[in-house]
């Protein structure tokens, strides 16, 4: 076919012009493809990390705000909360036998008051609510150590008492009997005062003393004096000993624990999507636990480890990564298990709500706020607003600048193609005039010129796509890592914050996924550019009168 050969010859034999046109179109298309891919990559990264509630499959979270205390006074409206959190009492006597190791976990409601699970039904009934799940997130105090032994040692005895007493004087008859006895046993030495060392010497009231040996004397004492009996009361005394405090190693650590409705793996305080290792909680809700990556690292837990909570053994079945937005807990249990452990049967403190459509989120939010005046309703946007970091900037940048750049690139490509087509027609006026002189109709000339431009557009599009894909793959391979972080304090979404303020940082390697749509758009742009250029050139060619064209000097 002559016309096709002519077209090919024009492209091949005017190589410089063709190459310049292809470069212009190709670079334009490549830029559009690369920027669109980059933009898509940033969007994807943003969706992944910047929309934390979406990360837990939720549009809204409903929590119970502490009632405002109208009574005034210090502490203000948080009295309920303070009371609820005052219940940590460590009763050592109940921990076990002294010297044994004990572990105990206390569960506190944190900054969020609990409410009856049945209240969730009220929310589920609101128009526009597609699904509702509940969670119980608690602040846990973990105590572990040895029950202390308290020993006091007291030594008694060893004191000396001196007791002095007057003995009763023997009666006259007793005295006579005694003398008679002594006389009888010791007839010689009965005269003269007694100088013996006997105990009674000093007390004799005159009348002579006793002489002779002790044995005889002993025998002759009246009966009442042979056996002396008296009462003696020891002095009362109080023993005091300062006891050293008992040695113990009880450690208290705080962590957060979340009760998950494990029957909704796509929506809840934690979702199956967050599991990085292992698996999600089984729907049956057995004694299983998920732990956050950070908590697992700190406590050397891994999938299969046992987690003992107040005597119950929970098997760690999965490690979860935190979603951005700060509502991560350290440990997750099936809701019912946590309720039992924490003695909070039938209670929850957060309701996760999914709206039936994204458009109805704000309407649902208002409806919940109206139905439950005490409820605090937070939407994704509230949370997303707390997130900052390079990803946010990059994403915002890609949105504004990316679109602008794409338009500029596409426009530049069009302009280049159109200008080259025009200039090419301008240089070929004589040639086109000759064709007309040969008898080519206007339509044939236009068709030929437009065909060339379209062919250039197709080639430029293919070239641009290849180039764009290479750039996108390059970004995938060598792209920078973007991060997003959010700091959650006491006011954070799920109320885990008290004392456990944390910064969740999420890093995403920048990628540029190449969508079929992007490729189609890029190629379409090249074709369109070619067509615009071709039309521009062809219109100019069509206006030529053969005589005028031939008059044109090269």
């Amino acid at each position: 076919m002559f016309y096709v050969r002519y077209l090919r010859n024009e492209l091949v034999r005017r190589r410089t012009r063709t190459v310049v046109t292809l470069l212009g179109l190709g670079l334009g298309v490549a830029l559009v493809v690369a920027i669109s891919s980059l933009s898509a990559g940033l969007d994807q990264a943003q969706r992944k990390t910047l929309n934390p509630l979406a990360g837990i499959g939720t549009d809204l979270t409903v929590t119970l705000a502490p009632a405002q205390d109208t009574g005034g006074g210090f502490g203000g409206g948080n009295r309920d909360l303070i009371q609820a959190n005052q219940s940590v009492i460590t009763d050592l006597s109940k921990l076990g036998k002294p010297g044994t190791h004990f572990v105990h976990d206390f569960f506190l409601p944190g900054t969020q008051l609990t409410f009856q699970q049945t209240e969730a039904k009220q929310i589920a009934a609101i128009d526009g609510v597609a699904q509702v799940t509940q969670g119980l997130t608690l602040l846990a105090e973990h105590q572990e150590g040895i029950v202390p032994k308290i020993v006091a040692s007291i030594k008694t005895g060893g004191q000396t008492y001196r007791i002095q007493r007057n003995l009763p004087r023997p009666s006259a008859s007793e005295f006579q009997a005694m003398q008679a006895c002594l006389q009888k046993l010791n007839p010689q030495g009965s005269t003269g005062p007694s100088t013996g060392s006997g105990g009674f010497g000093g007390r004799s009231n005159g009348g002579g003393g006793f002489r002779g040996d002790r044995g005889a004397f002993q025998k002759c004492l009246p009966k009442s004096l042979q056996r002396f009996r008296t009462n003696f009361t020891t002095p009362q005394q109080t023993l005091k000993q300062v006891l050293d405090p008992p040695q113990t190693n009880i450690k208290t650590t705080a962590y957060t624990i979340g009760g998950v409705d494990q029957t909704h793996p796509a929506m809840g305080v934690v979702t199956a999507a967050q599991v990085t290792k292992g698996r999600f909680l089984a729907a049956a809700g057995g004694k299983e636990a998920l732990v956050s990556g950070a908590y697992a690292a700190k406590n050397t837990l891994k999938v299969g480890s046992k987690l003992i909570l107040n005597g119950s053994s929970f098997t760690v079945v999965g490690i979860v990564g935190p979603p951005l937005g700060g509502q991560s807990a350290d440990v997750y249990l099936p809701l019912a298990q946590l309720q039992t452990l924490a003695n909070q049967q039938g209670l929850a403190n957060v309701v996760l709500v999914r709206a039936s459509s994204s458009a109805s989120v704000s309407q649902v939010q208002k409806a919940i706020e109206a139905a439950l005046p005490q409820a605090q309703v937070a939407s994704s946007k509230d949370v997303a607003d707390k997130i900052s970091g390079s990803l946010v900037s990059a994403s915002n940048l890609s949105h504004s600048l990316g679109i602008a750049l794409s338009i500029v690139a596409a426009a530049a490509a069009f302009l280049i193609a159109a200008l080259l087509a025009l200039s090419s027609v301008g240089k070929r006026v004589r040639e086109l005039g000759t064709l007309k002189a040969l008898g080519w109709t206007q339509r044939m000339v236009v068709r030929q010129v437009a065909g060339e431009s379209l062919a250039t557009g197709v080639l430029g599009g293919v070239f641009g796509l290849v180039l764009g894909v290479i750039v996108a793959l390059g970004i995938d391979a060598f792209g920078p890592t973007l991060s997003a972080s959010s700091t959650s304090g006491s006011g954070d979404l799920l109320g885990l914050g008290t004392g456990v303020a944390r910064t969740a940082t999420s890093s995403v390697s920048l990628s540029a996924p190449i969508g079929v749509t992007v490729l189609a758009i890029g190629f379409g742009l090249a074709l369109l550019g070619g067509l615009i250029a071709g039309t521009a050139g062809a219109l100019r060619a069509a206006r030529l009168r053969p005589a005028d064209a031939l008059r044109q000097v090269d």
Partner: protein
Amino acid sequence: MAQYSVRNAQKLFQRGPATVRALDGVDLEIEEGEFVALEGPSGSGKTTLLQLLGALDRPSGGTIEFEGRDLATLPDRELATLRLRSFGFVFQQFNLIPTLTAVENVEAKLAPTGGGRERALELLGEVGLAERAEHLPAHMSGGEQQRVAIARALSVDPRVVLADEPTGNLDSKTGGEIIELLAGLAVEHGSTVIVATHDASLAARAPRRVQMRDGALAGGLAAPAVH
């Protein structure tokens, strides 16, 4: 009835504020099969008249009847058809398509008529360029290029061959060969030949010479070209 019947043909060009009368009331009749030389200095209106006769342009006034049809009033499409099937042009600058080989340049004329490569090669043979068929114009001499142009013009067996200074860019020897070729082939193909030239020796080969001065014919309406 004459093949061409030109009555009071006028052509005005606007050059800025001034109006240039390129043709100012030309009357001319040309019979089928004639070999006519349009003579005159540059600017006398030869090329303009040739373009009107070849349906490359429309007159500003008057009529140009070709085989009974007024070229001034025919629609563009019909003029294109006439140029394709009835006229063959040979230009001073050869006007070959630079990206096409010799044979492809001939095909450019034949393609819209459905003619093909074989016919183009046949014509190149007639002008003695069979072996140069695959050469690009840039690789051919002026004489060779003009021969390709003649082959192109004659490829559709046109009713009229219009040549505008065909030897103007050639040395006199080559110019002579070209004019011989053109005259000879025109007879073979049964075509009328109208050659515009300022070369008296070339014009002298034509049986009929028409002198032009300032946009008008110096000679009579159908005066035989005899000096």
